[in-house]
């Protein structure tokens, strides 16, 4: 009974749902002409909607996890800084939840709506943009360390990387147009060829992973590897 419940039933559900989506892709055209096509379309769209609904409701699971981890840290951490940061995280999370639930325009309570926008525009977005902008510093130290001609491959990487940086610099675009022609050629021929090869093989890998999932061989998504 345990194996039936924990393995066979989930695999059967996976197979049936996957089959419906595959049938929808291959049998339902953009302009539906037959009644059975609209049936297949209906069930395919319903499954997709259920998946989106599940994904949104499961966010609550994440909130519980965060709360447990940080409450535990507040109780057990030795460092006062760790306790403070965890407490601050929980406080900010509660603020966002309350304003999000009761302050989103046209949802609950309009007076708080501008507060949600304020949190979004003046706190979340600048913080995200700051972390994103810090990429340049990590790239600078990464490039300085990695672009070294130790072997033939690393020398090729150095030359192409160097030219690519020159290509995107307005100064060299003005005074060294040969860089533009060279990098354009590299981007149009060798890079595109390599990219297409990796993309085709990655797509094939994803397809075979999908087939293994439908066959019940790949059970990683069930949380067990058998």
């Amino acid at each position, binding site marked *: 009974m345990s194996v039936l419940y924990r393995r066979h039933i989930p695999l059967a559900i996976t197979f049936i749902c996957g089959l419906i989506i*595959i049938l929808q*892709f*291959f*049998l*339902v*055209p953009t302009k539906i002409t*037959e*009644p*059975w096509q*609209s*049936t297949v379309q*209906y069930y395919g769209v319903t499954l997709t909607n259920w998946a989106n609904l*599940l*994904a949104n409701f*499961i*966010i609550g*699971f*994440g909130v519980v*996890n*965060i709360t447990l*981890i940080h409450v535990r840290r507040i109780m057990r951490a030795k460092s006062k800084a*760790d306790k403070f940061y965890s407490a601050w995280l929980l406080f900010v999370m509660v603020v966002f939840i309350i304003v999000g639930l009761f302050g989103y325009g046209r949802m609950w309570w309009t007076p708080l709506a501008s507060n949600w926008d304020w949190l979004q525009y003046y706190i979340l977005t600048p*913080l*995200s943009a700051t*972390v*994103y902008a*810090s*990429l340049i510093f*990590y*790239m600078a*130290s*990464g490039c300085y*360390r*990695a*672009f070294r001609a130790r072997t033939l491959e690393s020398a090729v*990487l150095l030359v192409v990387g160097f030219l690519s940086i020159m290509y995107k610099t307005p100064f060299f675009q003005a005074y060294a147009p040969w860089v533009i022609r060279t990098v354009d050629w590299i981007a149009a021929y060798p890079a595109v060829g390599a*990219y297409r090869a*990796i*993309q*085709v093989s*990655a797509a*094939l*890998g*994803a*397809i*075979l*992973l*999908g*087939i*293994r*999932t439908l*066959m019940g*061989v*790949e059970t*990683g*998504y*069930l*949380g*067990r*590897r058998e």
Partner: protein
Amino acid sequence: MTRFPILEVENMPFNGLTLDLLQIVAGRCLDLVVLVIVWVLAILGVRMLKRGWTPKWRKIAGLEALEEVVGRAAEMGRPVHFTPGFDSLTSSTSPQIVAGLAVFSELARLCARYDVPVICTVGDSTVLGVASEIYKQAYMAEGKIDRARPEEAIRYLSGDQFAFTSAVVGIAEREKPAGNVMVGPFYAESMIFSEVFYRIGAIQVAGTARIYQIPFFAIICDYVIIGDEMFAAGAYLTKEPYSISSIFVQDLVKIFALALTIMGLIAIHLGSKVLIDFLQW
């Protein structure tokens, strides 16, 4: 559209065989034929395996290095960090997350075997439950379920990309893992993760099928798993017959694609569009 449209449909497909079943959408016939052939070949491959055929595997250095990562962490008395990327199991990159979780399954078993703490950071709640279950199963398989601490090991950080990134950086700086394994879909945070974990001296194994993040991993991480090597991880690590045969079939299809490319090149230069029409069938 009514609540139960199937009751109102006249030409129901399971009312005996009808020609309606053969009305494949234009432009997708070749896709369906290839899908069916691949499926059949995968099953045939299993039969060949059971008759004693053993395919030769190319070593995937990144997957072979998992034991090295855990061993190093055991020597240094520090944890191992793993992340399957930032996306959701309902997104278009879910195959990459599933592939990442297959790697986590093996990593968690190794960590259970050598008593190394593992920190699995996830950026989506849909992955949280699966990762917890994998973690518990791994410890159970090693007979150490009493030492499993999923509430400490599996951490949902944030659904926002850069909040997730900042949290992982914070974990790296505070807990200083000796090893970092990142297998899954990564975005701009790939460079940040690689640099930060390099800075703290962690050995790194990274893999993604998002092509434009591969160079960032390649220049910094110790081991890189590129594109379809990641999707082969489950088969590579379990050596399960169906999985192995599917990898073999994958390689056959790649050869077929290469042959089509060469034939198409020749055909186009001879002025014929027959292969283009065939691919659009």
